[in-house]
């Protein structure tokens, strides 16, 4: 009988290290409802709440699966993948964990094992293939990434040929989705109004690779990450901003080694603007709108940006918070490849979030992630809700007029 050597068999899990055995199975990740927490917690796992709810749908079950694989008691399978990929990797289970285990890092390692074993999700294959071959996961011509520029009445520097203080990394969703391209348009307008010297890669911009990383296709991720590294290096840029939560997390965290080597600082646009507004005493007018705010997981729990959007929203609107916010915020359900792989599940989770937003009485639901925007807007349409989805850049642009 062949000796089971998990370090050799599971190379991705091996990188996560000994933590694969650390979960004590306490189950806090199942349903941590706590009115005394700050902010209060009203549950943990949106995937569990909107599926059959068996243990593999939340962290404890996944951890036991990982442990069993590691200990040679279980084999990877397509059936397993069907459950493991229903998690939007929102990181709420990490927030709930008494031991601060990095659960999502382990899920991503498990997904990478599944993909390498040929058990990846079929729906993700064309997406990741397009990301490598077309440089965007939407299977669209990358030249369309420049189309939103037609809405501007000023010229934006081309990072491929011109130097600028800041690179605006637009991201595939804002650049290629017509009803979300306003995120890019407004970001550019804001930067222009504030006389900030910036550039973009335009049709040459390469996907950050987030979808590949989240869905376990690390070859695809590495392919685009390497391209981006070369482009960043060639451009000589020292600061990157992005209005996309997914790009932000990926560039800042997954590219951390690259960024350190190149001496590049990565900001989310809202993080950058909040700092800029404070430092330069930029005057913003209050728009008199009643808003509520959805924390994207990739800016919030993954990266800790909670106060920056609220600082601005409180200046320019009347903000009413939802029942679950900040570390305890419910996910929109789109991330981690769920929107692509399980669109109905993503929509159901988003509907719950919209109902939560409606409870505030706000007319406008604000966020700072084009992908959250997409899913929440879909849910608003499905529910025929009166609430309006708006990206924070839109409001800032108005408040600067």
């Amino acid at each position, binding site marked *: 009988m062949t000796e089971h050597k998990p370090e050799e068999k599971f190379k991705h899990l091996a990188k996560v290290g000994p933590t694969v055995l650390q979960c*004590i199975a306490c189950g806090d990740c*199942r349903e941590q*409802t706590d009115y005394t927490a700050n902010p209060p917690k009203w549950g943990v796992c949106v995937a569990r709440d909107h599926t059959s709810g*068996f243990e*593999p749908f939340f962290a404890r079950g996944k951890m*036991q699966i990982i442990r069993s694989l590691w*200990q040679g008691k279980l084999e990877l399978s397509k059936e397993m993948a069907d459950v493991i990929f229903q998690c939007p990797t929102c990181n709420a289970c990490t927030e709930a964990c008494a*031991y601060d285990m990095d659960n999502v890092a382990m899920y991503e390692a498990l997904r990478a094992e599944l993909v390498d074993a040929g058990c990846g999700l079929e729906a993700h294959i064309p997406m990741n293939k397009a990301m490598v071959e077309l440089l965007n996961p939407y299977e669209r011509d990358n030249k369309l990434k420049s189309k939103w520029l037609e809405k501007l009445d000023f010229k934006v520097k081309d990072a491929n040929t011109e130097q600028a203080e800041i690179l605006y990394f637009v991201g595939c969703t804002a650049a290629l989705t017509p009803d979300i391209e306003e995120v890019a348009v407004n970001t550019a307008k804001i930067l222009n109004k504030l006389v900030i010297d910036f550039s973009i890669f335009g049709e040459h911009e390469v996907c950050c690779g987030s979808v590949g990383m989240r869905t376990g296709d690390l070859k695809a991720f590495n392919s685009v990450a390497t391209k981006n590294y070369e482009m960043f290096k060639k451009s000589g840029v020292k600061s990157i901003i992005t209005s996309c939560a997914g790009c932000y997390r990926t560039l800042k965290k997954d590219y951390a080694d690259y960024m350190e080597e190149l001496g590049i600082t990565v900001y989310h646009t809202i993080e950058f603007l909040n700092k800029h507004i404070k430092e330069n005493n930029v005057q913003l007018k209050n728009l008199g709108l009643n808003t509520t705010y959805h924390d994207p997981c990739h800016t919030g729990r993954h990266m800790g940006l909670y106060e920056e959007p609220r600082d601005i929203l409180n200046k320019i609107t009347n903000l009413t918070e939802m029942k679950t916010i900040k570390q305890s915020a419910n996910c929109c359900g789109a991330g981690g490849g769920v929107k692509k792989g399980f669109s109905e599940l993503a929509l159901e989770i988003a509907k719950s979030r919209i109902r939560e937003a409606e409870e505030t009485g706000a007319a406008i639901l604000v966020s700072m992630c084009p992908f959250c925007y997409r899913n929440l807007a879909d849910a608003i349409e499905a529910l025929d809700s009166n609430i309006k989805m708006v990206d924070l850049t839109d409001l800032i642009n108005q408040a600067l007029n």
Partner: protein
Amino acid sequence: MSKVKEAYKEIENVLGSDFISDKDFMKAAYSRNVDPAFPDRWADIIVRPETAEEVSDIVKIANKYKIPMVPRGGGADLVGGAATQGGILLDLTRMNKILEVNKDDYYIVVECGITWGDLVSQLHPTGYTTGCIGPGSGYAATIGGGLSNSTAGGGSTKYGLVPDICLGVEVVLPNPQGTIIKTGAAANKYAKPFCRYGVSPDFTGLFMGDVGTMGIKTKAYLRLWRDPPFKASRNYLLNNGDYNNVFKLAHEVRNNIGDGLRDFMVLPQIIVQMTAGQLRTAEGKRIRIKGPLFQITLEATDQRILDIHLENLEKIMSKDKMTTLLPNPAGSAEGLEWNYNLKGNFHFFQASISPSPSNISMVTCHKVPISNMGQVYKKVIDFDIKNKDEFPDGNAWPPGTFATMQYLLPNGNFVVLGGFTGDNTDEAREKNMNMWHKKTRYQVRYGAVHYWLGESISQSIVEADAYTPEYRQFFKDMKKTVDPNFLLSPNKFHMHSYEDDITKYLVKDEE
């Protein structure tokens, strides 16, 4: 087709295909609770029923094919209670609703799969409480698990164990008919479920602390109190290590503070030293830690009453300079507060019982009369020293340290919280389990009554020959009455069949 396959098909017809599974990865996910001392146990079938009627149908099918069943709440226990090797595992967490909050008559009706965190958090805005707010593993732990394990937790010094707040249950008996009954006042079909006694013998008690052997609890009727809004905590250090003084002070506080005393906990000296090296007095002086730490929480309906309680407490604790008052919880060293927040209550096990998650914990929490405290403390240390070579590798705790946290319960008894740790490896498992059983048997023989029983502790009680022959027979007869095929949780109490003679499990010639 095997009987398991046939049973699967029949249950699938009841639940639909979404709420039943026999996939390997699913079995692995349910293979343990917070009890890695046990080897992984894979059920044959895992189900998630939503109603008592569905549970009843599953029970009928299990009886038809003679397949064992184990109910599972939050899977938060540390004693092997909610996993099964083979058989049907019933994940009851879909049954998680609050069905009624009756503030006029001071009771609530809940489904047993609701978690303590959810229940307490939903009740809080109403200004009402269940008093005992559930065990240290409360975020995940369910009300059903709390009843089945007779757990204690925040508020238990005043309000008692979880079964003490129970007015009755709805339960599915594991018999071939899958009979559904209600107990307490709910057994009277004309009555509200507002009290426990007076309809018949107290059959609610049959299902309290039964670790899921006598029935599958689906609903619970629980007491409700107006939550006293004024609360305060105080930390006192005993100025010597004599545990007879712990008894004396507990006795005096209980006698003089009365129902103003909500929680009374004692942490051993070494834990205080490990967690609070920089502890200082209210005047800012470093403290020499000579004895255990008292963490006391008081509550009242009025600030003036609370102030009187605090004054009385200070008088008792400072008499003869017996203790030193430490700064209030907000200013004391991190980790020492027995706060009112749920994390403080519910993360108790994570913080103290499982301090090092790569290791595993063999918990031996048990209850003793408070007058025995000094004696028990010595016995705990004697045992640990005498058997130190038999403890498993990876036991992080010096002799006597881990088994000396005490939590005062009503009517003069302490829970002695504790256990020991060991390496979490398949090789170490047998040694861990052997020592666990041995230590538990020792406790049983010095008159301890255990906290939660699960599989490991319930077996150790039998092994220690705690029961008289008459009691053993009575227990078996009761079990046979509700579970004639002995299908529900068969390993607990070493009770596998009516014919099996459990005296064969007795461990003799042992101290």
